[in-house]
């Protein structure tokens, strides 16, 4: 099986935020939650770099390790998913995540968190693939499901698929790493695969 990963080529990202918008639209992500975001470092200064970031679907994911109810699971494709039926909204995954991926809709008073939501790599959740329950609906201001399941349809995550500069790559880790390496050789420079050391404990041609 493939081991799915994300790779953002920071030398190509133009901070257009189309990945952010496409993700919100594709999954009907509720207000206040952003499964993907673009962060610009050293904005306006020489050496500025923009990086598109979401859940990196880590190897040995820290969120899954600290979850007090074991609501996380890793698919055969290496995608880290979770069950909103089991999630109790405690916030522990969000303390552990290096990429700020887990987020909670605010429900009720006293800061009670709803069910955690994060990037699913467009792979849905534990429900039957492509079912209405998997896509989810809005109940009491909460998003019950996970959005669309493009992986089950044989498609890659939309954020990467529609990236105009092909900065954001998604797919089998070995293949996207190879594409990135070829780019680096051809253009003669690299600023490294952002987040890979933290998420996968590996680097590419940096």
């Amino acid at each position: 099986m493939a081991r799915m990963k994300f790779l953002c080529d920071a030398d190509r990202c133009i901070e257009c935020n189309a990945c952010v918008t496409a993700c919100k639209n594709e999954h009907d992500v509720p207000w206040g939650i952003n499964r993907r975001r673009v962060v610009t470092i050293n904005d306006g200064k020489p050496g500025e770099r923009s990086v598109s970031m979401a859940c990196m679907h880590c190897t040995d994911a820290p969120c899954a390790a600290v979850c007090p109810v074991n609501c996380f699971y890793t698919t055969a494709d290496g995608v880290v998913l979770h069950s909103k039926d089991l999630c109790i909204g405690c916030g522990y995954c969000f303390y552990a995540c290096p990429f700020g991926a887990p987020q909670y809709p605010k429900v009720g008073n006293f800061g009670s968190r709803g069910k955690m939501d994060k990037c699913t790599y467009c792979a849905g959740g534990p429900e039957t693939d492509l079912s209405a329950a998997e896509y989810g609906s809005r109940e009491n201001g909460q998003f019950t499901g996970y959005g669309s399941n493009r992986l089950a349809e044989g498609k890659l995550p939309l954020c990467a698929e529609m990236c105009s500069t092909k900065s954001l790559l998604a797919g089998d880790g070995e293949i996207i790493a190879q594409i990135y390496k070829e780019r680096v050789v051809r253009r003669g420079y690299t600023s490294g695969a952002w987040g890979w050391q933290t998420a996968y404990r590996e680097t590419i041609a940096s």
Partner: protein
Amino acid sequence: MARMGLVLRSLIAALCLWLAAAATPPAAAQQPTSVNPTAQSVKEQELLKELQKIQGRSSLPDARTRVLEQPAGREWRQFHQVTLRWIGAIVILGMLAVLLLFYLIRGMVRIEAGRSGRTLVRFNAFERFVHWMTATCFIVLALSGLNVTFGKELLTPLIGPEAFAGWAQWAKYAHNYLSFPFSIGVVLMFLMWIAWNFPSGTDVRWIKEGGGIVGKGHPPARRFNAGQKMIYWVVVLGGGAAAITGYLLMFPFYATDVSGMQTAQMVHGIVGMLFIAIMLAHIYIGTIGMQGAFEAMGKGEVDVNWARQHHSLWLDNEIRKGRASGGSVAPAE
């Protein structure tokens, strides 16, 4: 003439070749084939070496999205999954073992002179209400807190993941909502008992003589002896620390960022484990550990002979004020 021309021509040719050879390398270096735009760009690993987190600007209105990466969660994960479990297991099981051993060796501390049959008020209704409100909240908070640290390993194999998640959801609600009456209880205890809980000279003697529990004698004590004062300060300071760190976690980003919440959770976890262990000792001495102690917080009245044995200075004072009848009393029939 022709020969001269030939020599000249070859000289010029040689000169040209030499000039070309000398000039070519610098000329090529001045016209690079590519520009390296990353030469002065920010590098992830360099940033991470300098900073705990990489932060930038995001066009999204949510300030939280500005943080790109913060790998510190790894250390926190190690704390939560390994360190805290060891701390909890050692202090709680260790305390239970010590208490069991102590009970087997020392047994219940009896009222040596027997019951006098006459009582005096030790805690009024309001004091008992505050105590039991805080105590019941504490028990629920302790169990639901332990559930977060140990529940998935201990309970999931027994009841299955769905039932465990359902129970954990209610435990979380209980933990969040009961924190409010618990915090109010801690504040009320702090205010209503502070007057009797400053350390004093009698405490030194009480500790030296082992409080009459470990040793043989019965050191004098006022309303609260040194052991009870320690419990008081554990509740006030530990409860205060647990409440503050707990509210930081319940209301994310109001006062601190994610790394602050990791620290808050570490303090909350350690304080909680120590708190539970110390409260086990408190529950022990208030129930099976000492005859006549539970009624102080139960009925609110204690036997005069119990008071003489454990709080002689307090009893003398109460007698002086006419709240109790003194004198050496023979055991009741």
